[in-house]
């Protein structure tokens, strides 16, 4: 890292700093001159959007923590105090709550992009697994955050989800008691969830650093799935990717702002405006929308232990994708049959999400089981088999060839882009 010849600082201060802590050179080589495939489309901007949303959640969260009281007798009222008394408290609370939704939406889009273009394939397996770890951390953080307002949904979601661990044979009950810190969800539970909810986002930030590091080792994937062969097939990250990221970030913020300012409670559940009552369970407990697909899978299996295992498996199986997909072709652009199964998978995920919000009866259960079966079959049967039997379209030899057509030497007629 020291003596990085790419970065030549102009100002005396930067020269002084660079010799002692080469952070200028690190930023320069990672985010300014970093070679980025020139054919990336807007689906590649969601990594930047996710980093931005993490920053939003941390900043709004730290600020909300200045006014929130993590005690069962005061938590609900402290949230109302934030909404009514604290300067801009209503804005901070709605930003944080809707920010969580925007965070998960971006994460799911980001993951679907990876699945479509084969971004999980060799040599990006560790990058993909770090991503699954990030998803798990997000799920835990979001769950604990939702408990903090101590509404009816907060309390009963905490009860149901912690009770999942009781399905584990032999040690299950002990684990649940250990999680609760008592005989039921209560004051100890709320306090420890507050502590961990404050902690985990910083763990997420650390894993994000690893995630970006792993990305930079392999380089970005691109819509053709063919690695850049020459310098001409890449552009400097700044200004090209930076501006593309910033643009879609702005558009995404418009969507975010629409929720925050016009329909801030649309994605939430009105029952959470009722203070927690340990004696009365709401008639229809549902988690927030971003957990609904997993919730539907859990409820689709009629056996307690197997349902919990299916829930865990539905997330963990994603980590095995690089080995389950046997196709030598990366991008779905050249895999017409795979593409159809992929879109059915997306429909299955959305369908499971919708079914998760419905009461577990009648046809809802039937379709949840069908979609759950497809979900697992996609990973365990369809992908392994498809990679071996499908007829793929011819993969271009290079990115340039995919744009200009065949018969042209690499980089011959394309003028070099303006480099930083």
């Amino acid at each position: 890292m020291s003596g990085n010849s790419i970065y030549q600082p102009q100002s005396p201060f930067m020269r002084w700093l660079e010799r002692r802590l080469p952070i200028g050179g690190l930023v320069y080589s990672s985010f300014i001159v970093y070679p980025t495939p020139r054919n990336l489309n807007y689906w590649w901007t969601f990594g930047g959007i996710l980093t931005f949303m993490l920053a939003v959640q941390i900043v709004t969260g730290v600020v909300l923590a200045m006014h929130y009281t993590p005690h069962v007798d005061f938590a609900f009222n402290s949230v109302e105090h934030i909404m009514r008394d604290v300067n801009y408290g209503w804005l901070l609370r709605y930003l944080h709550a809707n920010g969580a939704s925007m965070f998960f939406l971006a994460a799911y889009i980001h993951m679907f992009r990876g699945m479509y273009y084969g971004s999980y394939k060799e040599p990006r397996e560790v990058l993909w697994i770090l991503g699954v770890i990030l998803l798990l951390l997000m799920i835990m953080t979001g769950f604990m955050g939702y408990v903090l307002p101590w509404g009816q949904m907060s309390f009963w979601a905490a009860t149901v989800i912690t009770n999942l661990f009781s399905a584990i044979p032999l040690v299950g009950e002990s684990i649940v008691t250990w999680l609760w810190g008592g005989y039921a969800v209560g004051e100890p539970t709320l306090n420890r969830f507050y502590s961990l909810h404050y902690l985990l986002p910083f763990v997420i930030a650390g894993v994000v650093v690893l995630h970006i590091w792993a990305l930079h080792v392999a380089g970005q994937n691109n819509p053709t799935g063919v690695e850049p062969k020459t310098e001409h097939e890449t552009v400097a990250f700044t200004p090209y990717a930076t501006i593309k990221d910033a643009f879609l970030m702005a558009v995404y913020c418009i969507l975010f702002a629409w929720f925050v300012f016009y329909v801030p409670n649309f994605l939430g559940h009105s029952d959470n405006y009722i203070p927690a009552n340990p004696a009365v369970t709401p008639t229809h407990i549902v988690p927030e929308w971003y957990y609904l697909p997993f919730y539907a899978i859990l409820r689709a299996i009629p056996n307690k232990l197997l349902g919990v295992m299916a829930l865990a498996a539905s997330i963990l199986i994603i980590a095995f994708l690089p080995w389950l997909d046997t196709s030598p072709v990366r991008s779905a652009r050249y895999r017409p049959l795979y593409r159809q199964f992929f879109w059915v998978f997306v429909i299955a995920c959305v369908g499971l999400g919708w079914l998760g919000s419905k009461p577990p009866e009648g046809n809802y259960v039937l379709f949840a089981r069908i979609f759950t079966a497809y979900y697992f079959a996609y990973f365990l049967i369809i992908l392994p088999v498809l990679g071996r039997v499908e007829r793929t379209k011819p993969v271009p030899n290079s990115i340039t060839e995919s744009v200009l057509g065949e018969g042209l030497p690499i980089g011959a007629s394309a003028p070099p882009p303006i480099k930083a």
Partner: protein
Amino acid sequence: MLVTTMSSAEPTRRDFLYIATGAVATVGAIGALWPLIAQMNPDASTIAAGAPIEVDLAPIADGQVIKVFWRSKPIYVNHRTKKQIEEAQNVDVAKLPDPQPDSARVKPGHEQWQVLIGICTHLGCIPIAHQGPYDGYFCPCHGSVYDTSGRIRQGPAPLNLALPPYEFVSDTKIRIG
């Protein structure tokens, strides 16, 4: 740094776009930053709790001093004896560390009522009433001595004890704040 390979005498469209984007981003950043800073200012419930309070003077005996809280600050309400009033008035004002006549520290016609903020002007401890060589106030933290008018006489405190805003609603009731 980025435009050096294509420098020209005229500002280009790219320059305009950079400056325009930067300006909008700056305005956006200030707009985003403002609520984050403003939220730390006192909130509506804290401000509401700082409304004026009324103190009934009738139960306070001659020579007695009580302590009330207004806006989280301790306020001494001292029913001064005749001796204390005389000692407060018979002073060479010019020789005081923080010159101020006693008449400026009480309401006219109500010299026996002394209302002051019980926070030492040195580093913020609460001075003890009816203590010290002047039978005024004495701060135990660093030894500041105040007289029966609450004026600093000895010790490190730079200023006299501060006065809260107050008025007499009637002869036996004051409103502080």
